């Protein structure tokens, strides 16, 4: 760790002397050894991603040689067509998107509603206990309730993507309520009171005053809910009975059996499943990163 922390007592002392030109020069001095170490470390992320892309564009003949790092020569984009058909990409993509969208909407509404009621009625025992009750699920891993939930969803005809979305939302509830209520406690009550004096009902106050103020927290909660739902394999694979209605992560398992050696097709399929979140992340990373950090600070 000492290699990572280069702030020696001498430089720190120099920095503490409020000497603007010297201080600026020190801040500008780049720690190149550390930069290089980090760049090498980042290969641990970049190489698997490169392998996925490279493999996807190889021919079957080149893909079986085991050398994942080689460039895809000859360049072969045909695997994507095959992967597209084998996974019924438009269907599984739509199912994934539908489940994730439903999860996000349900999570945002249920947890912001509940948190608002809880925070504004904290003096009432019922609301305090409800908070503890909802939060208890933080310690409840899905496998514990999986078997009865599989039976329940089958019984009430929710052994389909809608049931998966409901369960995804349920498992986001505790964490989201925790984030929302921490945030809501910091909103001064005076804002609501003036709206109430102007004759707004609680319902109107929620939509016109509280919800706009919750903006950044909505982004955080929404991002968490979306990623958890979009990337999940466990719940859809156990809950959804119709294999034709499976999500993208689940349909990838066809490459584990019958198409075991068509690595190029499998990787083309993996790439198509991974790409959406990575692309969205690269464009919206400010929101993702600030979302997680805010979540951490608030909780």
């Amino acid at each position, binding site marked *: *760790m*000492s290699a990572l*922390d280069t*702030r020696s007592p001498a430089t*720190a*002392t120099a*920095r*503490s002397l409020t000497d603007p030109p010297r201080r600026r020069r020190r*801040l500008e001095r780049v*720690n190149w050894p550390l930069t290089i170490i*980090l*760049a090498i470390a*980042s290969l*641990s*992320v970049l190489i698997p991603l490169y392998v996925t892309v490279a493999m996807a564009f190889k021919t079957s003949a080149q893909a079986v*040689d*085991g*050398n*994942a790092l080689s460039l895809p020569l000859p360049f072969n984009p045909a695997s994507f067509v095959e992967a597209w058909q084998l996974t019924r990409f438009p269907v599984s993509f739509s199912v994934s998107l539908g489940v994730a969208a439903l999860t996000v909407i349900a999570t945002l509404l249920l947890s912001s*509603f*509940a948190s*608002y*009621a*809880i925070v*504004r009625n904290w*003096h009432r025992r019922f*609301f305090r206990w*409800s908070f503890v009750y909802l939060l208890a*699920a933080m*310690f409840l891993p*899905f*496998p514990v*309730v*999986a*078997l*009865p939930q*599989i039976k*329940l969803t089958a019984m009430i005809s929710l052994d389909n993507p809608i049931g998966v979305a409901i369960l995804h939302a*349920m498992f986001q*509830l505790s964490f989201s*309520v925790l984030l929302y209520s921490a945030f809501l406690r910091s909103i001064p009550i005076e804002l609501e*009171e003036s709206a*109430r004096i*102007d*004759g707004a009902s*609680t*319902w109107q106050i929620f939509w016109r005053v509280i919800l706009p103020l919750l903006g950044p927290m909505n982004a955080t909660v929404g991002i968490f809910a979306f990623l958890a739902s979009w990337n*999940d*394999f466990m719940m859809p694979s*156990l809950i959804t009975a119709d294999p034709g209605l499976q999500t993208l*992560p689940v349909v*990838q398992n066809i490459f584990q059996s019958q198409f075991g050696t068509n*690595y190029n097709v*499998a990787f083309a399929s993996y790439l198509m*499943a991974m790409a959406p979140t990575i692309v969205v*992340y690269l464009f919206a990373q400010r929101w*993702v990163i600030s979302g997680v*950090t*805010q979540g*951490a600070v608030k909780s």
Partner: protein
Amino acid sequence: MTMQTPLTPETEDPRPGPATAATRVHRRVGSLHRTEGMYYLFLVPALVLFTAFVVAPACVGIFYSFTDYLGFGQWHFLGLENYRALVSDPAILGSYGFTLGFAVVTVIVTQVIALALAIALSKRVRFAAGLRSVFVIPMVVSGIIVAYVFNYLFSNTLPALATSVGFGPLQQSILGDPNLAWLAIVIVSAWQTIPGALLIYTAGLTSIPSDVYEASALDGAGTWKQLRSITLPLISGFIVINTVLGVKGYLGAYDVIVGLTNGGPGSATSSVAMTIFTGFTSGDYAYQMANATVFFIITVLISVLQLAVTRGRNLRLA
């Protein structure tokens, strides 16, 4: 009740015009009741759905753990028979041994690497923002797909590389080795969960004012001393969040294992979650619900223990 106290009958009534004191009071009381009802309406959907889809199934499942229910048909009470059988079932004990060991190793590996990366990125590093973006990418990728990609790397690329440089031990896929397969699962799980921990530690580090470091440097504290006496104590809250969330996630490990080893070779990497799910297909419903109940108790105990230990530590530091 706080929001009602400053309301006077006059200001509460939005409609202008003459109103007697009696109607004012009446309206105020009416609005009070309506307001309260609205709050209940806000809370009830979450409570009802949560009860119906999580708590009720959990209770039904725990109930069946005391029976011989197969998942269908008739059942009889067995008392604690299932629980007694669990303790002497080598498959169950094996899965607990693997899962607990895996969770402990992974949480340590993840926290150390994530904290080191977070500290390194907080220094005067070139391209810090870009590097951080790269390090966070694994967080947004599906665990099962990552596991499939690494599955190929472990079973094809790594042996091919080892063969070409003549390095014996890695010429066979580590996924096929009962003694090494768990290592692959640790690597991929850490790969996937480091970003979240890294971001939380970054948040923790930025919350430490820089003059604390400057003051300690004036007092002659070196790099290690600063890490031990300033950084770690001040971000201990973040370490707690990360380990509690991490351990809970690793205890429930499923996706990554399915994609890498599917519990094999044999049952060397079979996690508790995987054995519980066999209750769905093998007719062991009641027995695996007993397993799930024990698993739940262990998960809660570990979380509570972690919180208690760190709370004690915080007190000592303060």
